[in-house]
Every structure is written in C-alpha cells, then in structure tokens.
C-alpha cells in the first residue's frame, strides 16, 4: 500500500522538480546570460506592408483608444492596414468602427461578423486566407500600443526563419485590486524572465496571441488559424515550431494591457488558458516528440514542458492527495531519511523557484515595494491550481461526452469614450 502510494508520488515530485530546475535555470540565465534581442536594433529598413488584426466583441469602451494608438504609430501609413473584426457586437462597437472607417478610409477596415463560430480563433481563422500582406500583427482590443511598437514587432520578420513574434505585455490597471497587483508580478516573471530566458537559450518563446504577429507565408504553410482552437496562440506556436519556424520574443517591445480586476474573471481566464493548453498538449505532444530528429532536442524538451505547464496543476493536486493518503498509512521508516529530505528539499527549494523568478523579474524591472506582496502570491497560486485542475477535469469529461466548448471573453474595465479618432 505504502509503495503503491510512494511510487506515483515520487514520479510527480520528479516531474515537478524538472519544472523547478527549469525555473532556476531560466532565472539565472536571465540574470547572468547574454540577452538576445537581435532584431530590436533595426530602426531603419524597407518596412513591409502590414495588416493589424484586432478581434473585437462588445468593445465600445476600449476600441476607440486602441485605434487612436494604432493610427498614431510611426509605421509608414501607406503600408499599414488596421482590420477590426467585429464579432457580432451588440453594443456600439459597430458604429464606432464605421465612423473610423469613414474618417480613415483605406487605413481602418472594419469587418463585421454576423455568423459562423464565435470567438477569437474563429474570427482570425475567417480572415486567414484574405490578408495579403506578408506580416500580420494581432492585438486585443484593450491594448494600447506605443508609436514605435509596430516597427519593433515587424523587425524580426526580416529573418526568414521567424514565423511569429511576441512582445511584452505590461499591466496598466495594477492599482485597482490585490489581484491586479499579483497579476502584475506574475506577468513580470512570465515575460521579463521566463520568455526572455527561452529567447536567450534558443528554446520556445510563446506567441501569446496579442502584441505579436505571424508571417503570412508561415501561417498559410501551417494551415491558417484553427477555428476550433481554444487557445489559438498556443496552437499557432506549436504548429509553427513543429513545421520548422522560429518564434521570437522581444522583451523591449512593450505594450500596456488590462488585467482582470476580480477573481471570477481571473478564474474564467485561467480556465480558458488551461483548456487551450491542454488541447494543444493532446494535439502537439506526439508530433513535437517525433520532430526530435529535425529540431534541437532542447527545443523539443522545452516545448513539451511548456505544453504540459497547465497539466502540472492537476498533478500537484494528485500529489497532495497521495501525500495525504501516505500520511494516514504512515511513512515507511525503512525507506530512510533520504526520501524525507528529498520531499523537504522540494517543498522549500522547489516551491520557491516561482517566487525567485517573480522577485527577480520585478527587481530587474526596477520595482521596489510591490515585491513585498510576494507571500500573497501563494493565494493566487492556490486559486490557479484549483481552477486549472477543475478546468482539466471538466474538459476531460466534456471530451468523453463529445461536448463542444463555449468561448468566454475576458471582461473589460476601462471607461472609454469611444476614442478621439486621432484628435487631441
């Protein structure tokens, strides 16, 4: 009985330990390694035509500000088209978009969807075959890109191997609640350390579906966006990697975003991410493993770990359940002190890796007192762990029943005024 509990427990501890070591390596690399941002210095070039896709559903509060920001870009205006995909909005989004299209003919092109599958992936999939420019950037409707950001995000596409590029998102509304402050810390860790370290080490930075873009020929080569993808960004990342393209991350290319301000919204968001990631794990786990002859082993290994990152949540809960059961049957003394030390080491060093990453990132960002909130991240982790596990179990049940997934949009908070159309 004890052995039956111990073996899976140590397998889980082993798997999680691999993630722990990965966190440490990433953080130490970000602290001491060469920071690879080879394309960010391209300030002058023959800039290619670019289409910016903005999926939008009931975005009347934010879409105007977003369009103003894009229209203020220093990218050559004649080479920049903004296509807002209005996905059956029921608020004033359509009217705002039509007004912008009238005032900026040829630059702002609304696309009103009234049918088909709802959701971002489906909206992008519908446009995949129609965009004619070689570079396609994607922004969510609540983002506020700076004037120089478009050039920065286009620059990596001068490298013919680059299939997708990702910039850094920076929370704007962090002063709202404890949650927004915790998400600000998490985002710092995720981008400033995690993504940049993967870029430095030539691993798999993730295309995040906003503040980024894809090469049209790469998109077409891998079959365009999948309408049924639950996380079209993760799906695209892996299809590109498996097909031999590179995804690059530019830490310098920053853009403001809104993060969820209340826990229910956050829980819905993370559940959606978990389902999307798990879907990608099922779809690309084996193809990625098979591509080990074509891709560097480190890329395949890191790609698998990235794919499994949301599966770790349920694993941890199972591990906790096993540890509880083992507690009741009594830990076998004959196993000696080493396993105890192993678990104790993991419990301290292991769990601490994520805190190290976040604190390092915030410190690199020049942040000070916000790092003091670090212990409260434990509560955030507990919510995430539970939500991810619930989402995974629900997804498995739905999959067995053959049920379809309902797409959920993240709530917006900004009180926009519909934008100014570029006027001061």
């Amino acid at each position, binding site marked *: 009985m004890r052995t039956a509990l111990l073996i899976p427990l140590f397998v889980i501890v082993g798997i999680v330990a691999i993630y722990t070591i990965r966190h440490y390596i990433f953080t130490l690399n970000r602290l001491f390694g060469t920071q690879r941002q080879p394309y960010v210095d391209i300030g002058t070039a023959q800039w290619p035509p670019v289409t910016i896709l903005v999926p939008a559903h009931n975005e009347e509060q934010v879409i105007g500000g977003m369009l103003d920001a894009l229209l203020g870009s220093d990218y050559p205006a004649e080479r920049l088209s903004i296509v807002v995909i209005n996905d059956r909005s029921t608020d004033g989004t359509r009217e705002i978009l039509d007004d912008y299209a009238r005032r900026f003919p040829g630059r702002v092109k609304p696309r009103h969807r009234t049918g088909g599958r709802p959701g971002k992936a489906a909206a992008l999939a519908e446009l995949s075959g129609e965009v004619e420019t070689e570079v396609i950037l994607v922004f969510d409707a609540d983002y506020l890109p700076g004037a120089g950001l478009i050039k920065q995000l286009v620059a990596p596409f001068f490298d013919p191997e680059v299939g997708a590029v990702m910039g850094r998102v920076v929370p704007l509304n962090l002063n709202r609640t404890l949650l927004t402050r915790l998400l600000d810390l998490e985002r710092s860790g995720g981008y400033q350390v995690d993504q*940049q370290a993967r870029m430095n080490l030539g691993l798999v930075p993730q295309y995040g579906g906003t503040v980024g873009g894809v090469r049209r020929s790469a998109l077409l080569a891998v079959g365009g966006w999948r309408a049924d993808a639950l996380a079209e960004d993760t799906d695209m990342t892996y299809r590109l990697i498996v097909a031999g393209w590179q995804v690059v991350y530019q830490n310098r290319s920053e853009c403001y975003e809104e993060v969820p301000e209340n826990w229910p919204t956050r829980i819905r968001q993370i559940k959606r991410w978990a389902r999307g990631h798990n879907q990608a794990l099922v779809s690309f786990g084996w193809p990625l493993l098979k591509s080990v002859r074509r891709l560097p082993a480190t890329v395949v290994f890191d790609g698998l770990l990235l794919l499994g990152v949301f599966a770790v949540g349920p694993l941890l809960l199972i591990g906790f359940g096993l540890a509880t059961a083992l507690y009741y049957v009594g830990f076998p003394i004959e196993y000696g002190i080493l396993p105890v030390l192993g678990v104790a080491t993991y419990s301290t060093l292991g*769990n601490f890796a994520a805190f190290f990453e976040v604190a390092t990132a915030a410190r690199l960002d020049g942040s000070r*007192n916000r790092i*003091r909130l670090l212990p409260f991240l434990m509560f955030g982790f507990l919510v995430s762990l539970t939500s991810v596990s619930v989402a995974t179990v629900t997804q498995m049940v739905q999959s067995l029943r053959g049920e379809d997934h309902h797409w959920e949009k993240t709530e917006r908070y900004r009180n926009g005024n519909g934008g100014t159309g570029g006027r001061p």
Partner: protein
Amino acid sequence: MASPATGSAPEREGLLRDLARRGVRGGTIDPHRAMLKLPDPGRRLAMASTTTLIGVTGFLFSLPALGTAWTWIFRQAHSFLGLPGAVVERSASVLGRIHFTVPTLTFDAIPPDGTALLAATIATAAVLMLSFALRGPLVPLAYFVRALALVQTTAIVYFRFWPEYFPYRLSEYLVGQLQAGLVVMGLIPLVLGFTFYLFDLSLIRKLLLTVMVLGHLAVFLPLLAMLHAYLVAIGTLVVLPTLFLMFGLLLHVMVFVAFYGWAMSWPSALWQEPKRS
C-alpha cells in the same frame, strides 16, 4: 571635486566616463530594463557559495544551543498552558558528529470519541458554509478554507472508520515537526545563497536577512509545535492531520517568502529605480 580641466589624467578619464552616462539633468542613464542583467557572475556565484557554506556550517554548529533554547521554550509554554505530562529531551545528531537534543512532551493525545467527531463534523461543515460567504476579494481565502475543510473531512472519515490504525503519537509528531523545521532552517542559507546573495546588496544586508529568517524560525518552530500540542490536547487527534498538512511546513515556507519579498524590495546599488508614468 576634480575638474576635467585641472584633474590628473585618470581623474579626467573617470569624470568623462561618468559624464557619458549622465543625462541633461545629471541623472544616470541606465540601460532599458529589458537589457539589464547582473555583472560578474563568477564572482557572485563564488561569493554566494562561500557565504552559503559559512551559513550552513554556522547553523549546524549552533544546533546544540538551539536544542537547549527550544527545551526552555517548551518548558515555559508547557507550564503556561498547563498541558499534561512533562517536557523531555530526545537525542539527535547530524552525520554522527554534531550531537544535540530536541524537546518533546510525554503525554499522549487521545483519539476522538463520538462526541468529538460530531463536534469536528459540525465545525467543518460550518467552516465550509462560511467559505461560500467569502466573495469578492476574499475568494482566495474561500479556496483556502475549502481546502482546510476537505483535509479535515479526511481526518473525520479516517477516525470514524479506522481510528486504531492512526500511526502517530503526539510525542513523535512533535519531534518530527521540529526535525523537519531544522531541515528547512538548514536549507535556508543554501536557498538564500542562490536566490538572494547573488543580488547587488551589501554583505551586511545579506547576513541580516539570514539571521532574521533563522532567528524568526528558531522561535516560531517551538511555539508552533506547542500550539499544535495544545490544540491536539483539547481537540483530540482528529485535528492533527489538518495541523500537519495545512499549518506545518506551509507556514515555514510562508515566513521565508515574506522575509524574502521584503528583502528583495531593498534598494539596489546597481541600478536606479526607473521613472514611473
């Protein structure tokens, strides 16, 4: 201050180099945060390793004194709380070289009877109900409370059906808790070595943090153990699993993270705080 016009050649060169880093108003111009990293990794890692070694060694040699102090705390707490039994010392050693004692209590807690189980069940149900009232910003707390209720439920079920198989006695439990705490304390210089000593802070601050964390845990561990003993004494063994699983190692780690988060907010000697919007 030497002037570039009048100073010696090295002074002039130093001033010109400094001038190259300064903006119009004289403030230093740091690289963008996206490019920042720590210089001298070799020196830092060597320093961290050395400091870690000193920290771990120092901790190991302080174990006998720590054991004595913990026994004293146990005796004071035992007397204050009026717990049954007595405080005794158990011998322990590290690698057969450093010998020390760990205190524990001689009284044995009783398994729950029907009344205790009923009370625990009612309390657990009440806590669970309470969790549903925790909304808005208190949602994370609700999750924690539900986890608590879940663990306590396992204890109630266990003691309802298999009380005779419960493998722990309070005295062993206390020794185990303190020894696990010692493992955590021993690891702290190591963890700090490679997650904190690397940063651009003075040696004094690094040592200060180490001493603060170890000092805090040195007091907290016996207090927590005695609180557990008291709660088991009044609540029977049915509360022990929850105390072990939810209020043991987790609290030690939280103490450490709290100190670490505070220390990481201390000002950097390497780069300035960037301007905010």
